[in-house]
């Protein structure tokens, strides 16, 4: 589904990604871990099409398309979803309206009929119940006045509504207390399916005890330096990142 080859990217002239290679297939859940500053969020941003990053080398194909050629909205319409580490507020625009506009753009580009306000409302409420989010959220302005936990849950609701093929979760666990973490994780787990891939970017192992990945990768200094199964995450939790750094230095 997603194939990243030798990806290099800079932000404001500093090279952050220095040759990332990664392949993700439908149905798989991958975790990308790493110490602060290793390039995790940059990778998420580059895949989503954030123009703050410049890709200097490498290629990314998504569902057979050259992802890097496409503007952010086209990537989203193809089925790539990014759950933001810091969801953005849009004052005055209700969640329901925002999501209806987004979903209809995606449906339109996939040759489906747009949903009208009535149809969408029904669909939305179904999804809200599915990910256990209070229906009141529908009428609140996008992320405005939401607590940190509410914002993250709102991202998961958006994912449920937009039904992406590839969901990238950028530090979705940050700032969540244990209850919120459990609720968010349950939401993500319900959305896992054989047609959908999930890539979680996280600093801590704790998210991974709720959302158990098939693969764990360690990103360090802009490269994936180690890959393994879910046990790798436990090892990292136990030993920290230093042994990885030493391994890399030794090579």
């Amino acid at each position, binding site marked *: 589904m997603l194939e990243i080859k030798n990806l290099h990217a800079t932000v404001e002239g500093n090279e952050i990604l220095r040759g990332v290679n990664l392949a993700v297939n439908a149905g798989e859940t991958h975790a990308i871990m790493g110490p602060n500053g290793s390039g995790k969020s940059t990778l998420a941003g580059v895949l989503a099409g954030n123009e703050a990053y410049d890709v200097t080398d490498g290629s990314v194909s998504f569902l057979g398309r050259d992802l890097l050629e496409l503007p952010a909205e086209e990537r989203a319409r193809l089925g790539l979803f990014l759950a933001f580490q810091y969801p*953005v507020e*849009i*004052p005055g*625009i209700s969640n329901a309206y925002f999501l209806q*506009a987004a979903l209809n*753009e995606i449906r339109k580009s996939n040759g489906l009929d747009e949903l009208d*306000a009535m149809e969408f409302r029904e669909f939305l409420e179904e999804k809200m119940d599915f990910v256990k989010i209070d229906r009141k959220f529908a*009428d609140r302005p996008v992320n405005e006045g939401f607590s940190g936990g509410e914002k993250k849950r709102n991202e998961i609701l958006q994912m449920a509504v937009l039904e992406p093929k590839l969901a990238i979760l950028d530090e979705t666990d940050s700032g969540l207390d244990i209850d919120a973490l459990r609720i968010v994780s349950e939401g993500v787990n319900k959305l896992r399916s054989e047609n959908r891939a999930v890539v979680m970017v996280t600093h801590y192992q704790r998210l991974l005890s709720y959302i158990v990945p098939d693969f764990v990768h360690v990103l360090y200094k802009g490269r994936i330096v180690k890959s393994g199964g879910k046990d790798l995450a436990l090892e990292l939790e136990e030993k920290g990142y230093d042994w990885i750094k030493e391994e890399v230095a030794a090579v």
Partner: protein
Amino acid sequence: MPSVADSNQENADARAQKPPSGNDTYSGTRVEQSTRELEELANQQYKHGWVTEIEQDVIERGLTEDTVRLISAKKEEPEWLLEWRLKAFRHWQTMTEPTWANVHYPAIDYQHQRYYAAPKRKAAPLSSLDDVDQKLLQTFDKLGIPLEEQKRLSGVAVDAVFDSVSVATTHKDILAKKGIIFCSFSEAVKEHPDLVREHLGSVVPYADNFFAALNSAVFSDGSFCYVPKGVKCPMDLSTYFRINAAETGQFERTLIVAAEGASVNYLEGCTAPQRDENQLHAAVVELVALDDATINYSTVQNWYAGDRDGKGGIYNFVTKRGKCAGRNSHISWTQVETGSAITWKYPGCLLQGENSIGEFYSVALSTNYQQADTGTKMIHIGANTRSTVISKTISARNGNNSYRGQIKVMPKAHNARNYTQCDSLLIGDQCGAHTFPYIEVKNPTAHVEHEASTSKISEDQLFYCKQRGISQEDAISMVINGFCKEVFEHLPMEFAVEATKLLGVSLEGSVG
């Protein structure tokens, strides 16, 4: 009349597709729903910039007592009105043009202007629409304002003003059955002189300010509305102002009176051709609300704003004021100011009656080289009077936007309340936003609140929207609509749709 009928039909279809007004069940309010219509409009420039070729009765340039007399004579006015005009003119000659506003323009040569232009009539007086020149009917059709009642689906009565004269007023018969008078100002002077004489200048005296004095001397036409005691006007009333003639000023005058317990919603729309020369527009609007009366006055101002380099456009110097004369009276101004090279406008309320309420909801946009200095005046005179001011200004490219608001609480206005909120949105780094609040309180029981904020459309917001599949243009209009929501909610459905479109068109391409 095949061409008229055809374009009416198109218009009727377009109206029929719109969702019914008052359909607020979903939080996707009427304003938000309309955002989608932006797509098709995103690439349009000012679309009302064309000229109607029509034979004109135009008077010579310049302004003297003779000009005033000539205008009055052309309109066959009574002596008292001519005298009033002359007093205004003489006073105007003693005044100097105000310079306190935060707008800059070359000096206006008032002797170079023309003060009257009217399409030539085949035969006067007009007895029905059949007598109206086809070109005029077509002009308003093209603007989306069909004047033939049977072809109008929407229940809005329209007075159509073309340069210096009213062309036609629709639905007069239905309104007359309720005792409502809705006609051109000129007709009101002839048919209802006592009402006009009683209220003309009672809210905006001719000596009020430089532009009001000029208007009082040379005003040409406009609308008059009187809603009698206890009557709720069964349909929205509307005036559509069209400037057509070159180098001619438009000086219209509108007077609306709501008697005890009456209520009326009034809508005003404006467009003008695209010309390289600046054109002057100096209007006066007076509203009078007696005991328990309500007047809601909404404007979508879309005069020509000039081109991207700041060439041409309308100079819009307007005095609008409402008098809440009676107890529990209520006047609400809602304005969306997108056009004009220069906007100088402060719709206000004199809150005389006890418990009266004044409101001002405004969106002012300045892009390219537009300059807007606009706001409100709320003068609390009676006890327990309340006012609310919500001002949203949007500045883009080289636009310069100032909010100027006066809140005055007089000694007898016990327990007066005011809440003012001024929000500015900046797009790009060449534009400006300014806030000039003037607060004067002479009663210690008053509560006056003022809040202000300035924000920018952020790249983060746009990226967030795009990551959800929404295009850049739609993302911008979404952020702007969200910003303006509190104001758009006060507009009638059709105006809200229009306003949303206008903001989208005007701001196209200004981000990124």
